[in-house]
């Protein structure tokens, strides 16, 4: 029954630098208030998925995906559809979105990868796990995949997450197996809104944020699921 310390790889990596360089030098890495380095785990539809270490805030999302030193571009020549920037619970970002940062309206791909900026644009850099989704994917199916994971992971201790996580999973399963209804987008939002902020642990946010952000940012695609045409064509019509 002895306590066991479980350290993140990223932490050990940070410690190594701090011991070697000293704290002062280390804090000169990165950008103000976002100092040091981060370990990025880049996955999904990129040519070169993998782990990369960056100086916090010195690299943009676009560079992480397209630069030869990192992802090397979207796979198979496909276009970019969405980025999940900080682990699967972080709110999704839609390709083509722009954000007011300082004086400028900044394109998604020019957003620097750090804590503060991602927070400012309504998501988070969280675990540093970036998932890239290309335009060959059906976005409803992507969310269904996440919802299945969260329904399975919920410990079940508290009511909103225990019941809500499986509820969302069932709805998305139905939607991706021919049973989608036009009201399902609103239905999903209703479920997710009743989870966030009302649970014992942060898993409530973790399971509801993907649903809230996917449905809000890709509403048309979710509504289109109920129509009897192929999803992709319908979804790409503005």
């Amino acid at each position, binding site marked *: 029954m002895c306590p066991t310390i479980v350290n993140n790889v990223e932490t050990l990596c940070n410690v190594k630098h701090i011991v070697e360089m000293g704290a002062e030098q280390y804090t000169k890495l990165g950008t103000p208030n976002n100092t040091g380095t981060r370990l990025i785990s880049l996955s999904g539809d990129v040519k070169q998925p993998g782990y990369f270490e960056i100086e916090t805030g010195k690299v943009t999302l676009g560079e992480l995906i397209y630069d030869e030193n990192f992802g090397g571009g979207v796979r198979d020549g496909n276009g970019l559809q969405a980025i999940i920037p900080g682990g699967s619970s972080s709110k999704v970002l839609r390709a083509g979105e722009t954000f007011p940062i300082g004086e400028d309206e900044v394109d998604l791909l020019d957003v620097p990868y750090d804590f503060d900026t991602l927070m400012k644009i309504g998501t988070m850099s969280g675990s540093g796990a970036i998932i890239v989704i290309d335009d060959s994917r059906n976005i409803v199916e992507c969310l269904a995949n996440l919802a299945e994971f969260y329904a399975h992971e919920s*410990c*079940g201790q*508290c*009511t909103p997450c*225990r019941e809500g996580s499986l509820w969302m999973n069932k709805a998305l399963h139905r939607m991706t197996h021919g049973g989608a209804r036009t009201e399902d987008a609103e*239905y999903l939002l209703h479920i997710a809104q*009743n989870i966030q902020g009302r649970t*014992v642990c942060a898993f409530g946010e973790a399971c509801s944020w993907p649903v809230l952000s996917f449905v809000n940012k890709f509403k048309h695609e979710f509504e289109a699921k109920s129509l009897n045409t192929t999803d992709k064509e319908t979804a790409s019509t503005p």
Partner: protein
Amino acid sequence: MAEETQTEAPAVVETMVVKVDGREVEVPKLTEDWQGNLVPTTVLQACKHAGNEIPHYCYHPKLPVAGNCRMCLVHVGMPGRLGPDGKPPTNEDGSLKIDPMVLPYERQTPKGVIGCATNLVPGMEIYASSPETKQMREAVLESLLINHPLDCPICDQAGECKLQEYSSEHGQSESSFAEYKVHKPKKVNLGPRIILDAERCVLCTRCIRFSRDIADDDALGIVNRGSYNTISTFLDTPFDNNYTLNTVDLCPVGALTSKDFRFQMRVWFLKETRSLCSSCGTGCNTLIGSRENTMYRYEPRENNAVNGPWMCDSGRLNYKWIGREDRLSEVTGASGWATAIIEISAKLEEAQPGSVAIIGGARQTNEELYLLKKLANKLEAITDSAPRSGQGDNLLCCPDKNPNSAGSRLIGIANEDLGSRFAEIAQGIEAGTITSLIVFGDDVTKHGIDETLLDKLDLLVVSDILPNATTSKAHYLLPGCAHTEKRGTFTSVKGQVQKFMKALDGPGNARPEWEFLHELAENTTGQNGFSTIEGLFNQMAEEVEAFKDKELTWASLGNEGVTVEI
């Protein structure tokens, strides 16, 4: 008198003011937790003071707080963070600035706190009835209901179910749920006395916490994850301590049912009567549930001086004898009550002083033992009560299995050691100095006065409820009543004098013992007595030292009784 009575200075209770629904209420800063320690008062408790009951499932005042059901979510307003000057932000008029709580990442969305585990903060505003709070409740109820089987028509809990109650009070009439429900086992044999319907369970964990923290038996837990969570014992280990049935009371829904009560009676047909358990000296307070002169269950009735909200399983289930077919119901030895009392009175009047012995069982009431004592005084009779002992434990169960040993001692029927005079009585009968024996509620053949000795007696008057070796030897058999069939009081091992009410009629011609003892005592002693239980009790309280010290009256006992010096 008033000048002499030393009134204790009331303990100073520190209070604070919070706003509930815009109204200022003064509440104590500290409140007792489940173990009786004083801890900061919570939002839920403050609302209760304000007369606004926050719905809750997992919270129970006598269990450790779990905070898992989220039913008690309530929207609140809080003072802001302390500024650089160390002071909280204020309004223009200098008053404390209170901001309704919002989600930190979505400031247009209100955030609730769980009332059961959120301590009061000075200045706090509790929006107990606001639309925001209402919406949070509706959502939690909707979540609890989506996978709920809704088998109220066949559910034993129907009529006393918190899911039914809260749904009609705080829920919506419709749910948008369009999926298939989760199915779980519906008839799990958790142990010898309990069946679990896992589909009805709202996973509040009250049963787990009760067993682990109160009954000291870490027997229950949850298996499977997320929405598939199911209450379970460890593998096939049965849930079998002497307190398991309390989980049926604690369970806010119909998930845990008592095998004894399952499908026996709809609860709304039950008449409730305040009573006591008579199975040991603890004197747990109970409620009898009965219908048409049949008893269906005992439930514990909360009394923090005695049993808290609990009772033991063996006491709870020990009521079947009341309705037994072989209950004594007719007077024998005489043609009926009137002649029996006249004949017995006449014989007792003739008896030589010291030739009568009286056994007043410690299952008789204080009033009955008092009347027997009056008889004994007049007849100079030797008296005693038979001891009954068994297993005790650290929670409630007392090794003294008589419900009124303390009463017997205080009234002077038995001395400290119940049964210590039986040998002397046996010798007296053997020697022919004791020729009459009156026995109420004990089988003396089990205590050294065997059948051969009983055969020597000129007069054997026996009153009991069920037949035994002593009743079969009686010259006069007077059928008595179970405590559920009369009113009266018992004195617990700790000196709590408590009353019980009548729930049922006795069988046939059986009568409450105090009624005919009163007639017998009047005839024999020539003194007038009281023919009502209130009068009788009050008279007794004047004469029995320990009762007199506390100025007991039938009325002053209230529903929870009064502790006397034992």
